[in-house]
């Protein structure tokens, strides 16, 4: 049969009209949402999942659920509290006769690694084995291995002999080819392991520290010190089609990574061999949902935590699916359709989601919940104290200049303009929720006072921004590693504030590499930086300004190169002290020094807003703690019902469109027909 073009067009229209009703916007074609699967998204795959190296939030979302740790944070308690996980107890530091400190971890019995083909190195058909203290020692040795390139080596450097082990390993590898050809675990064994990591049988691990370091316990709640099987490191070497260990984690956690397609999706599935699933460990603190007494009234009232889950065995979710969403807009729209269970609030839709700092009525109608959590971090503008103009060399003059500059930066306005108000103005480096944070403290140099700033500037010898010594305008440089238009706008905000005082600040925007180079060579004056805590202790913020961390002297994170003898003295007294009233007094003194000296203009503590659907249960904002999926649950029936109700296809516009096309072309066809006949 020969079909005319008009007939063909009609056929197409009919086909479309018939086919489209069969369409749906469900991105999970084989699932209707009735299973206990948690759906989330990722923008970029982590560079590595090696627990010795992975140090980003996106990596920890996976590694913290695949690798168990010796200790972990209590899921609900704030301030954060450590609980035992693979260890049977949170060790009490014991001072040894020689002044060193011992931490003794007793390990849970019968903990197994997840099933994996790497264990076939021990014999055909073997797909798992029991975890021993040696597996922890192996991982701690990996932290010191220069080839592993762990970013946290320095944080564990107080372990006796760790630094020497690193040097020795490096020397033997470069000088002995036979040694270099051995497997990593064999090399570590050949060197006798790390002297300060003692394996006392299969179930006891003793860590010896050169000096007291109470904060190190927090590091044992992070995946860096998880037990790692030597078999996985040896087998997954990236050769002959095998994965790299960085892409194939093998742990003991409640979930195992079963699909890892970095371009498309990750899947975590329940690990049947998890210790919490064994009857003897079912009541372990990390294997059961917290008791009713640990659930706060606020968590219950806000709907975050379902009290009926108290004491129940973990985990609840069968599977966790991460789908790749490079762009934020489609990700957010799919959250609104119910295809993701939680997600952040994007800038483009902020006003539609949040009204008067609360959920908008439209979102509330969808049954959404808005969780706001102040992250344990701080953003600040820093002055390079090594600089001749803004730094310590100019003495009182530069101090007053820094004070004046601090007095005109309106961080409230900055937060409103650039972050939709998502942040808490900072008055000191310490964020809310941390020991030593004082909610009533107001830094006198962090409230806008232009008059006072002008007079301070005049006292500094720069009245109206003119340097009295040279009679020339004061020119400063704001060095940034962000050349984007958005970045420039942000920095321009600060520059405009300083211009009200007559100070001419030029933005020197370079790419990040060049900026890092400037920092390395000390060629910078003013910079913008941020810090997110590794663990919930004031030491983790205040060390950013101690002399021992100065960038110019030690390559440390004190990029302001602030060096103050009194500050160092107080910091040393506070650093390893238990949380008592004296520690609070010391912290007050420390922040007092920063208040006057102004090496930083503290800006804000970031605040994360997360939207969660009503069917997502027990989702407490995680903050520093990432092994959270085992606590969460889904009400699959409610989700399936809502998804169905929210996503019925709307067909009439299609039919109207087809009718319109037909009506529009009909006169032309009629005219043509008339002409032809």
């Amino acid at each position, binding site marked *: 049969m020969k079909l005319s073009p008009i007939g063909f067009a009609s056929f197409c229209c009919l086909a479309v009209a018939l086919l489209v009703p069969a369409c749906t916007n469900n991105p999970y074609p084989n699932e209707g949402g009735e299973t206990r699967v948690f759906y989330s998204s990722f923008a970029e795959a982590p*560079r590595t999942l090696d627990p010795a190296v992975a140090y980003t939030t996106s990596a920890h979302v996976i590694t913290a659920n695949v690798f168990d740790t010796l200790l972990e944070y209590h899921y609900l308690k704030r301030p954060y509290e450590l609980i035992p996980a693979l260890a049977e107890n949170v060790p009490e530091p014991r001072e040894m006769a020689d002044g060193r400190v011992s931490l003794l971890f007793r390990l849970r019995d019968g903990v197994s690694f997840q099933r994996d083909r790497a264990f076939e190195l021990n014999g055909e058909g073997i797909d798992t084995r029991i975890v021993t203290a040696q597996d922890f020692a192996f991982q701690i040795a990996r932290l010191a291995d220069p080839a592993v390139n762990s970013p946290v080596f320095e944080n564990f450097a107080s372990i006796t002999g760790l630094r020497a082990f690193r040097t020795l390993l490096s020397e033997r590898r470069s000088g002995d080819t036979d040694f270099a050809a051995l497997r990593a675990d064999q090399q570590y064994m050949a060197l006798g392991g790390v002297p300060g990591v003692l394996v006392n049988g299969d179930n006891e691990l003793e860590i010896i520290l050169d000096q007291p370091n109470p904060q190190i316990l927090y590091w044992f709640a992070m995946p860096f010190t998880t037990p790692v099987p030597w078999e996985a490191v040896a087998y997954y070497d990236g050769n002959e089609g095998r994965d*790299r260990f960085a892409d194939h984690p093998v742990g003991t956690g409640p979930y195992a990574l079963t699909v890892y397609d970095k371009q498309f999706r990750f899947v975590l599935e329940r690990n049947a061999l998890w210790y919490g699933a064994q009857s003897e460990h079912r009541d372990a603190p990390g294997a059961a949902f917290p008791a009713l007494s640990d659930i706060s009234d606020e968590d219950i009232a806000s709907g975050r935590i379902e009290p009926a889950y108290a004491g129940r065995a973990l985990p609840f979710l069968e599977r966790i699916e991460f789908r790749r969403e*490079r762009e934020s807009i489609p990700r957010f729209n799919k959250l609104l359709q119910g295809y993701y269970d939680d997600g952040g609030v994007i800038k483009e839709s902020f006003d539609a989601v949040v009204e008067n700092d609360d959920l908008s009525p439209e979102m509330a109608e969808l049954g959404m919940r808005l969780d706001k959590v102040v992250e344990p971090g701080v953003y600040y503008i820093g002055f390079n104290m090594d600089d001749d103009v803004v730094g310590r060399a100019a003495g009182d003059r530069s101090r007053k200049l820094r004070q004046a500059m601090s007095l005109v930066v309106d961080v409230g306005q900055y937060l409103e303009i650039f972050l939709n108000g998502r942040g808490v103005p900072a008055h000191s480096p310490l964020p809310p929720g941390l020991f030593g944070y004082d909610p009533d403290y107001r830094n006198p140099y962090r409230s806008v006072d232009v008059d006072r700033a002008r007079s301070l500037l005049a006292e500094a010898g720069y009245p109206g921004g003119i340097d009295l010594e040279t009679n020339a305008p004061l020119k400063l440089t704001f060095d940034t590693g962000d050349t984007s238009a958005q970045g420039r706008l942000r920095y321009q905000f600060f520059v405009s504030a300083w211009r009200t005082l007559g100070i001419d600040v030029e933005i020197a925007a370079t790419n990040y590499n060049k900026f890092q180079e400037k920092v390395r060579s000390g060629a910078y004056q003013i910079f913008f930086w941020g810090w997110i805590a590794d663990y919930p202790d004031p030491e983790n913020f205040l060390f950013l300004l101690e002399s021992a961390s100065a960038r110019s002297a030690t390559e440390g994170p004190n990029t302001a190169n602030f060096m103050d003898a009194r500050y160092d003295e107080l910091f040393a007294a506070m650093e390893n002290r238990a949380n008592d009233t004296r520690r609070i007094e010391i912290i007050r003194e420390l922040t007092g020094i920063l208040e006057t000296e102004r090496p930083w203009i503290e800006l804000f503590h970031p605040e994360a807003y997360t939207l969660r659907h009503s069917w997502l249960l027990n989702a407490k904002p995680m903050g520093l703690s990432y092994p959270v999926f085992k606590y969460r649950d889904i009400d699959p029936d409610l989700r399936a019902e809502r998804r169905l109700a929210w996503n019925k296809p709307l067909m009439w516009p*299609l039919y109207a469109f087809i009718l319109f096309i037909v009506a529009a072309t009909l006169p032309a066809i009629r005219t043509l027909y008339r002409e032809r006949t």
Partner: protein
Amino acid sequence: MFAYLVRRIAYGFVTVLGVLMLLFVLFFAIADPDDIARKAVGERASAEVYEQWKKNHGYDKPLIVNTDHGAAEFARYTDTLFFDHYRRMLTFDFGRSDADDSPIAGRILAGAVPSLSLTVPLFVIGLGVGVFFALLVAFFRDTYVDRSVLVLCMLAMSIASLIYIIGGQYLIGMLLRWFPISGFDPDPTVAYRFLALPVLIGVVSGFGADVRLYRTVFLEETNRDYVRTARAKGCGDIRVMTAHVLRNALIPILTNVVLAIPFLFTGALLLESFFGIPGLGSLTVEAIHGNDFSTLRTMVYIGALLFILGQILTDVSYTLADPRVRLR
């Protein structure tokens, strides 16, 4: 024609050498290998790790002359980044990604299927729709149909492709709820659900330019003598358009179309990015964002190869479309 092809391929090879030179200047001389290594391993990595990474990724050699070898030694010039760059690219040994050490060839192969599953339907449907509407408006020239479609084309061409994508996702995925807003599934039985919306958006965004171009070509043909002769012999209007005008207008259409075919492999950057399709377009965008220089230069090189291939194919297709064309 054989001699012509050999000559074109030889010209193409010279162009490839030039492209490789440009890539060398951009990715090795301007982008310092030390910077690349520092970005990859981090600022605080030990010198040992840093050197090992450079060695593993082939960045540890001197640029053009290796003074470790004697003046008479051939290795003085072959044991260099310059020689290595040419050797690797010309033998398609792309090495490993600077970002995550994965083999680049494997990533390209894995990304080619999702890219093609988007770009091939987009290309075929886009071409079909463009030619169909261009024929239609040429057929109804100087009527309200012609004028309305022209206005529509101008409007369509004035809108940025990003607006099509975001607007299309909102209108069709969010409000009308016909297709998923984004996503992909390698299973061919369900992949069409995810591809329908990007293909539709791609077709609509290209509609204006295509229809206007093809319409001009068709109108030029409809004024030719052979069309008048065909009509005089009693040939119907529709047959004139489809059997005579369309066939004779193929050369300019082929120029536009055949050149585009090789680029179907490299994917559609924006569409893949916004729809979460794990194709080569996504790979390129990711390489740009992630400072993955080795992947980026490979993609640029492949793009250049495909462009040269497209030009040769276009020339060959002329002889197939028009017997009068002879390639010598």
